[in-house]
């Protein structure tokens, strides 16, 4: 059976991962699809742990861990949900729009095999951004039910 110490240690390790991700983001950051997925995965991971631990631990006997959980909850709410998440949504929407316009205005006249295949990579990136936007929108819908 997992002891309170183990749970606390695990929670601190996961929080450190989240903190590292937050510290790597600035308002100017252009996150890749992979970085966005990694960030949301860690947020969802931490949120699930918080929900579970709040039901399982005693706020008096495990005050230090409980305080850390509440603090993490606040950070996710204030730092991520109200700040980083809307920025990511906005950047994804703008990026999808710009790439779409750019691809639509691409000169349809004689293109070489390499031109067509290089352009196909940009279409693939667009599809990835669209899928990521759907995923991010799902997170957003979850917030509106909270």
């Amino acid at each position, binding site marked *: 059976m997992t002891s309170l110490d183990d749970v606390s240690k695990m929670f601190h390790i996961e929080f450190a991962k989240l903190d590292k991700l937050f510290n790597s983001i600035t308002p100017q950051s252009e996150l890749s699809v992979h970085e966005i997925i990694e960030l949301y995965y860690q947020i969802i991971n931490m949120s699930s742990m918080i929900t579970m631990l709040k039901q399982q631990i005693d706020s008096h006997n495990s005050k230090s861990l409980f305080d850390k959980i509440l603090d993490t909850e606040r950070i996710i709410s204030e730092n991520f949900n109200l700040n980083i998440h809307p920025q990511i949504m906005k950047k994804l929407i703008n990026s999808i729009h710009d790439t779409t316009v750019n691809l639509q205005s691409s000169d349809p006249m004689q293109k070489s095999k390499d031109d067509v*295949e290089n352009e196909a990579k940009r279409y693939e990136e667009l599809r990835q951004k669209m899928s990521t936007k759907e995923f991010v929108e799902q997170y957003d819908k979850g917030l509106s039910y909270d």
Partner: protein
Amino acid sequence: MIEELAKNLVNLKQEFTKLYVGTSHIQEVIPIHKSEMFPIDENHLQLLHHFAKNNPIYYNFYEQKILDIPCIVYEGDINKYWLNSIQYGSSHAPFSPTWIMSAYVNVLLAKDFGFLEIIDIGSGDGRIAYCAKILNLESFSIEIDEMLVNLQKPLSNILNFNPYCSDAVQFDYSLLNLQKPAFFIGGLAQMGGIELATGVLEKISLILKNVGWVFAGTYSLKYNSDPKNNAGWGTFMDKYNLKHIQSILLPTVWAFHESDETPYIFTQTNE
């Protein structure tokens, strides 16, 4: 014979996927000549190549022997059609075609079942309707996306497969004077195919009784399965009392990287 042809085409595709080293968005093969594996009329094969060579979605082709069969590999790109199609509110599924050879085998089978006309619903570049013309069947191609219909127009100069730019659910089928048609529904059940098929079937049932319906299905775990199976179409077939005639596996562009080929489900209104 048609089932054997389909199996040989699947084997050819599976070998081709092992050999293919290109990076094109889409690719397919057509044998150059009639052979034991592909006992197809030489003129028909020429017309299939003619369709590919005149189709702007393909930007490159080259000869390659696959399973000792001399073939032409066609490399293409349909990204701009995909981007255009996803911007239509009423479009049911983004354009992703079956193989030209699969279109031909499908129509051969429909003809073998005695259908006299082929109506290609959500026809993309019109390849199924085109193959119907090769096989001397009357054919009509219904496509909502104007960009795709513009793609069909020069191809229909080779053989006139009657392209219509229209929402298939709104189209007036009484204009076509159909006798014994088979309708090919573009799109998987899980990708808007059910809504499209429902709209067309409910219209057709008011004017015709003896009708064939051909559906492209999938057994891929990526999609929700249907409790009554038939590659996603079982519940729909039950609801509209469609009799299963035959299923056949064939290569398609969208399943090129999959180990399982695309099942086509042939059905008929149950009198």
